[in-house]
Each structure stands twice: as C-alpha cells, then as structure tokens.
C-alpha cells in the first residue's frame, strides 16, 4: 500500500478514568470506503470525531498523508462530516446551508459559490428545495442537504456518522445505493460509522469491527463474514455457529477440537496451544441439512439434533436445531431446499459440513 491518506497510529482516547478508544492502529487508503462498525459505546464515533478534529487523541498520532493532525483544530481541516442528526443550520435556507462551508473557504466569489452549491443540490436531486427552510424538509431530503453541504467542499475524505440511522427502512436502502454510487463516481475516501451490518456489508470495501474501544478485526466484508477473527466478531455478525471445546490436535493435518458432541476438524492454522479452550466457527449457510435417517455423506463432520424452530426471512429460512448436549445451532437455507425435506418441529436431522469451511478462534 502506498502512503495512506489517513493513518491512526496507536491512537488512544480517554476521559478521566474511562477509556473510549484503547489503542487503535489503522491505515486508510485513498479512495477506500471504510466502515467502522460495532455496538454503541465501542469507540467508533470517538474515532471518527478524532479524525474530524472534534476530539483530541490522548495519546498516539493521527496523520493525513504524512502531516500530523493531532494539534490541527477542526476548522482548519478538510474532513467534512455528515451527522446522524444532520446538524443542518435551521436558521439558514437549504442553499445557504450548502454554501456555508464554501463561504469559509473563500476560494470563489458569491456567484461561483452559488453555482457550486446548486450543482451539488442538483446532483443529489434536491435543487428544487434550494429556497426552503430546513424545517420544511423530510428526513430523506435533510439527509441529502447534509451530504451536499459536506460534498460541496470537494474534500479528499468524507466522514459519515451513522448517516442513515434516522431514515425509515426503504429510504435507507435507497440512500445506501446512492452513497455507494457517489463513492464510485467521486473517488473520495469515505469513512463510515455504523452499527448496522447490512449498511457496512453493502457499501464498504473494508470493515473495522470495534468493541469496547478496541479493534476486533479489520478486513473485507467477505473476510469478516467468512472468517471472523474473534468470538466477539462471530457473535456480532451473527451469521455463524460457534461451538467451543478443547483443542486436541494442531499440526499439518489440521486442527481437531473435541467437545461433548464429538471431534471436529478444521483446516486453518491457529496460534492456540493443544489443550487450551478453542471454538470452531461454521457459517450457517455452509451447513448441509438432511434427515438423520438419511445416509451420511463421507468426508464431512456432522452432528445430529432435533428441529426446534423455523424462521422465514424472504426466500431464506433459518432453522434452529437443538443438539443433544443442550447447545443449539442454526442453519440457513433457501426455502425451496428446505421445503423438499418437509421438516417439522421435533424431527431428527443431521447437520454436516466440510472441515475446510470451518476455522478456529480462541475459546
């Protein structure tokens, strides 16, 4: 990677005794769409605020290109933000809101400023609202004004703090598409804070998962989805089954984890020593589901259990299975596949998977 546009180097933020961000290392490449994701209180918003210069790191260094930004005040930076609450100025019209940042720059005269603001309003499809007051706009329109206000500055980096969380569901999806499109067209680096998986997975090139002020995993959506690095990530993403046990073998032949249900193989390497607690993770959609009475497919690891519940979400069905030792697993299948099996609650089923589809995390 060439010089990152933004670098966080062991950045820490504490307020008195409470630590919001422990020690975060992150390099953001030019043109990336990076999502900071985690539950509330995980430090993602604090991190974004430090990038904007609204909070000052307690330790560590924030760099933009190679310039150290720690002591650069917010108003001398070029990292406009789109706020969860939009933070539009209610005493200014839509047009004046968009012109606000341009006015501070003084790079153009009033005519050029107006033209630029109108151009962005037009680009976001709200040119007709230019003369309106903010209180005359719907949530979706406000969101667009907030975006236009930030983008009119034509920054290198755009910061977004849960920008879609105040919108209703169908508008959220539309804005997602639009944000992804804008990112593609503009080549601006987007740093996007969210607690919603679907937003991060739909738009970001890279996702940073945070928990309690620490980075849990940085990776592409595929990495995060298929190979969560920690139990926290696996649970937060929620797409996988986590079965814990004890690591029995670790070597060239793979890893074996044993628990009350049996011995399970995994392909990946791990730093966990033999005899320690470990868990293996298997994605819910990588599990083959058959009736327990059907012949087992060779080469697969499997457990048997009873069907506990079925959930329909569109074309996908989630089947919850109770295992003999009291644990439960879930399987995600296309509805037509499951329909063929004709399962009912209490039916005996076998869950089987390829060992190479699993991987191991610390227990």
């Amino acid at each position, binding site marked *: 990677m060439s010089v990152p546009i933004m670098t966080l180097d062991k950045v820490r933020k504490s307020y008195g005794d409470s630590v919001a961000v422990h020690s975060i290392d992150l390099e953001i490449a030019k043109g990336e769409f990076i999502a900071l994701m985690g539950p509330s209180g995980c430090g993602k918003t604090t991190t974004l605020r430090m990038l*904007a*210069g*609204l909070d000052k790191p307690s330790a560590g260094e924030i760099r933009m290109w190679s310039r150290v930004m720690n002591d650069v*005040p*917010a*108003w*001398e*930076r*070029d*990292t*406009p*933000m789109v*706020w969860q*609450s939009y*933070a*539009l*100025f*209610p*005493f*200014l*019209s*839509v047009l004046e809101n968009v012109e*606000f*940042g341009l006015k*501070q*720059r003084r790079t153009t005269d009033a005519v050029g400023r107006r033209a630029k603001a109108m151009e962005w309003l037009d680009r976001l499809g709200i040119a007709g609202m230019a*003369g*309106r*007051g*903010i*209180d*005359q706009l719907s949530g979706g329109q406000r969101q667009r004004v907030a975006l236009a*206000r*930030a983008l009119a*500055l034509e920054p290198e980096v755009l910061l977004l703090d849960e920008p879609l969380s105040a919108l209703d569901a169908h508008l959220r999806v539309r804005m997602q598409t639009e944000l992804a499109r804008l990112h593609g067209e503009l080549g601006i680096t987007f740093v996007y804070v969210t607690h919603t998986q679907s937003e991060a997975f739909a738009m970001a090139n890279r996702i940073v998962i945070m928990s309690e002020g620490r980075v849990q995993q940085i990776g592409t959506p595929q990495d995060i989805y298929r190979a969560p690095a920690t139990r926290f990530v696996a649970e937060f993403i929620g797409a996988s089954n986590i079965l814990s046990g004890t690591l029995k073998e670790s070597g060239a032949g793979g890893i074996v984890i044993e628990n009350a249900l049996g011995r399970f193989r995994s392909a990946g390497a791990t730093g966990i020593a033999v005899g320690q607690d470990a868990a293996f993770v298997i994605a819910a959609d990588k599990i083959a589901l058959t009736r327990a009475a059907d012949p087992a497919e060779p080469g697969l690891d499997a457990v048997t259990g009873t069907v506990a519940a079925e959930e329909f979400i569109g074309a996908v069905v989630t089947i919850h299975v109770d295992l003999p030792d009291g644990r439960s697993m879930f399987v995600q299948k296309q509805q037509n596949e499951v329909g063929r099996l004709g399962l009912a609650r209490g039916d005996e089923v076998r869950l089987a998977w390829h060992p190479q589809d699993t991987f191991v995390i610390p227990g």
Partner: protein
Amino acid sequence: MDVTPPKRSRPRIDRFAVFWASPSLVWQVAFFVAPLVVLVWMTFWRVKNFKLEQDFIPDNWIRIFSSGFFYDAFLYTFWMALVAAVLITLIAFPAAYALAFIASPRTRTLAIVALITPFFTSYLVRIYSWQIILAEKGIINGVLGLAGISPVNIIGTSTATMVGYVTLALPLVLLIQLFSLSMVDKRLVEAAYNLGCGPLKTVFKVVVPSARVGLVIGGTFAFLFAFGDYVSPLFLGGSKPPTLSILITDQVKSGNNWPRAAVVAVVMVITLMATLTVMSAVAYRRRGGAR
C-alpha cells in the same frame, strides 16, 4: 386494519384547565384589564379647580400632543430604553455565553443563584447604593481623587440613569440569554467548526442565530424595564431631562391633572405593546419562505 376515525365532538371546555387558570385570569382582569379600561376612559375627563370630573372631551389628548415637552420626553425615554436594551444585551452576552458553553455545571448553578439573588433586594435600595457610589463626593470620585484626577459629574446625568437601567435589567436579561444559549444545539457548533468556521465566527454565524429568540426577548425585556422605570431617572438621573414616567408624576403632582397623566400612560402602554408585537415577530420570524 379497521380504524374508525374518532368522532368530532363539540369542543368541550376543560373544567380542570379552567379551574387552575382562573386565579391568574381573574387577577389579570381585575388588576390589569379593568384599570386599563378606566385609564383610557380617564383620558377624556376634565380637571376643574384641581378636581377630577367625569366628561368626554378630547382636550387632554390635544394638549399633550401639541406640547413640545411631551415629544422631547417621549423621544428621550425611547432612546434611553433602546440604548439600554442594546447595551445590556451586549454586556450580558459574553457572560451568558461563557456560562452556557465554557463553565462547569457547578459554576453555572452558582451563577444562576447569584443572578437570582438581586431580585430579593429592593430595587430602590440598590439605586440608593449607586447614589453613594456615583455621588459628587462618592466612591468613584474618591478613587479618582486619590489618583489625582479631578472629579467627574456622574450623578444627575443620563449616564447615571443608564447605570440604574443596567442594574434593573441585567440579571434578568443574563438569565434569559443563559437559558436560550444553553438550548443551542452543540452539534451545530461542531458542524460549523467541521465546515471550516473558526470559533469566534461561529459565535456570530451559528450561536447568535440559534439563540435569536432568547437574545431578542432579553433585549425586549430590557427595553420594557427601562422604558417604564421611574426610580432610576429620578434618583440617579435627577429628572433631567424628564422621562415619560416622570412626566406622569409631574402631571399628577402639579395640578392634580390625572387625565393628562393618563394620556401619557396610555401612550406608554401602546408603545410597549407595539414594541412587544414587533419584537416577537422579529424573534419568531421563520426562514425559507418559499411555499
């Protein structure tokens, strides 16, 4: 879903609301509306041999409006109240801003208590103490004398009157400003910083417009207080030049001319109402008129 819209019933008078609102309503009618009606009525009475007689003549209005001293007094009073409103607003703002944005919650609470305390002491007492400070041989001139500066004449001037106005209205204006500044959305301030607007500029471009209602209402209160005040122009300003309030007492004292005093009073009430109307319109004016 089968939801039948609630039937429109005749607007019912909420007995509960009426019960609790009635004391203040009764009070207002008995001690404000009724006297006002009597006051307006009285402007048409006549005074014969220092005695009040019921009548319906326009003479008092003609007399007052054709005398130069009334216009002088009106303009002076209006001007002084206007200056007081602007001056007090400007003095109060930095303090209110510091308390709302910079001070710790503890300091803010202490300051609010300190600002309310003056309301427990009589305004007259506070004006007397200003007399001691501003007097010819008072504290200020005493200090100036020690520094070898010749005494300045403060008492009996418009400056002294203005000092009284500030004493009267500053705590209230500061409180109003403080409350309205406390309600300014701090995220708007951050948004302004984020868009490249420095802290000082943000105060004028974001904080002041956001707190506009409080700032305008505060200034309006200062105007109302100063416009109607009698104590300060009398005891500090020495009635020179007279304000409308002093004109009223003059009319009553010299010649027992209650009707003419009533004319001045009615003019004052109208002025204050007009000011209030205009200023509330300014305070609550909306942005973005298109459609």
